């Protein structure tokens, strides 16, 4: 039998490109869920919101989605800090975060979806940029720019986040804040301020992921739901709160999904990914790089 070597390599490469994008989608959750213990199931809503704003400026003013979202990310940061403040005062401070906090973020997801639905309707929306059609060919390997550009953007974003977490005082405090808040206060650090900043960063990252999303695929208001399960799976698989772990898990999942889709059909991809998640957790409960 002739082994479809070229097909396999192409599937792996496509998976890596997709995986890097998954990493950007998960990065925000890795911060809020992995480091702050905030189960923000509303995170995909902010990604979609980013996509739609990028869409709006693209069709009306022909601005590149990545440029729009770069300019947008400080606004998303402040939106995130405001949302955390509401969450803190209404739930966390009273120790009611587990169930009511979850309901709160579900509400955020739902309301955002409905608003986008009212504003833009149910149709799929997409952007027009010079890099959406063409591909680069390296030998027999096909690199569509539509995937390559978000991949490179995601990796840069990810590298920046990792530097922030591991090399700044604020970043290290973000790693510590869920472990012992009083101990952090004894280091002259206000834990609530740290959580507010970190949550703001997670939402700013969502704006960037939104730009990448609408470059990769057309978007409709509820498309974020497709990502909720996958994103939490990557976060857990990588090891809670580990950025390098998240990146490895995202690439792994991208490659697995791509190979499965190529050889067995796309409908098998989610089943295989979650199978890998369950197997990994059976042998390594703390995830790939969990501490």
């Amino acid at each position, binding site marked *: 039998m002739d082994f479809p070597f070229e097909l396999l390599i192409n599937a792996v490469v496509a998976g890596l490109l997709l995986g890097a994008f998954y990493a950007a989608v998960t990065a925000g959750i890795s911060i809020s869920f992995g480091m702050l213990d905030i189960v923000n199931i509303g995170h995909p809503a902010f990604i979609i919101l980013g996509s739609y704003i990028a869409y709006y400026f693209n069709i009306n003013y022909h601005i590149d989605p990545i440029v729009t979202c770069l300019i947008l990310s400080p606004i998303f940061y402040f939106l995130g800090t405001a949302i955390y403040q509401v969450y803190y005062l209404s739930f966390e401070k009273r120790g009611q975060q587990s169930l009511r906090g979850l309901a709160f973020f579900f509400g955020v997801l739902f309301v955002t979806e409905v608003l986008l639905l009212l504003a833009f309707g149910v149709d799929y929306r997409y952007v027009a940029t010079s890099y959406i059609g063409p591909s680069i060919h390296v030998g027999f390997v096909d690199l569509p720019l539509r995937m390559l550009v978000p991949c490179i953007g995601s990796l840069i974003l990810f590298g920046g986040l990792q530097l922030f977490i591991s090399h700044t005082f604020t970043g290290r*405090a973000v*790693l*510590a804040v869920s472990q*012992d808040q009083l*101990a952090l206060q004894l*280091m002259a650090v206000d834990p609530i301020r740290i959580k507010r900043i970190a949550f703001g960063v997670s939402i700013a990252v969502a704006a960037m992921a939104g730009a990448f999303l609408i470059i990769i695929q057309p978007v409709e208001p509820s498309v974020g739901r497709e990502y909720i399960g996958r994103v939490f799976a990557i976060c857990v698989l990588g090891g809670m709160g580990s950025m390098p772990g998240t990146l490895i898990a995202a690439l792994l999942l991208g490659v697995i999904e791509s190979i499965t889709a190529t050889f067995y059909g796309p409908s098998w991809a989610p089943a295989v990914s979650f199978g890998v998640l369950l197997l990994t957790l059976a042998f390594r409960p703390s995830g790939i790089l969990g501490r």
Partner: protein
Amino acid sequence: MANSITIENVHAAYGSVRVLEDVTITVNSGETVALLGTNGNGKSTLMKCVMGIVRPVSGRIVAEIDGEKHDLVGRTTEQIVDLGIALVPEGRRLFPKLTVEENLLLGASRRKARAQIKANMDFCFDAFSRLAERRNQLAGSMSGGEQQMLALARALMLSPRILLVDEPSVGLAPLLVSRTIDAIKQLKDHYQLTVLMAEQNFKQAVRIADHGYVIVHGKIAFEGRSAEELNNNDLVRKLYLGM
């Protein structure tokens, strides 16, 4: 420059349970003061009052830092630490899933400490060579003695003027207890700290204390102006020395 703590007529309670009654304690600049008391007598509560973790019902707590006086009651814990007062808390409260080095760097978050990170870190690694060997190990996987060393070192990374230590000897083998007490003395001398130390281990605490207080049921039962006085007190003999 002078660094001292004055605690005047402090009363504290958890809800309706009164824990401290009319506590008055002075820690003069450059002194090591021992706060002696058996379980549940209010040592930790007093430490928490100083650090703004528990708010006294009444009374004053004033810290003098580099000659400048600050009223501590009503300030947040972060503000008090930022003034230059560090606490090594009961139970050490390290960040178990961070490495030794990350724990130490968090100690240097205070703005005034950032300039001295390297000098402080070198000193800590010099004083506690174990920490240097294990700088990349997770704090939670270290032995009790190593964790106590790390807790002390992390507090020093703050470049404090005043150091509060809550029961450093808890859970340590006798040899480690005396080493830990020696380490506190060494750190104090090197950084010219003012130290308030809560302890149950009377003999070890008195070894390095300039003077001390015995706290019983939330009240100061005895003040010893010197180690000598503490050693010869009847109450102390009864409570700690089994005589």
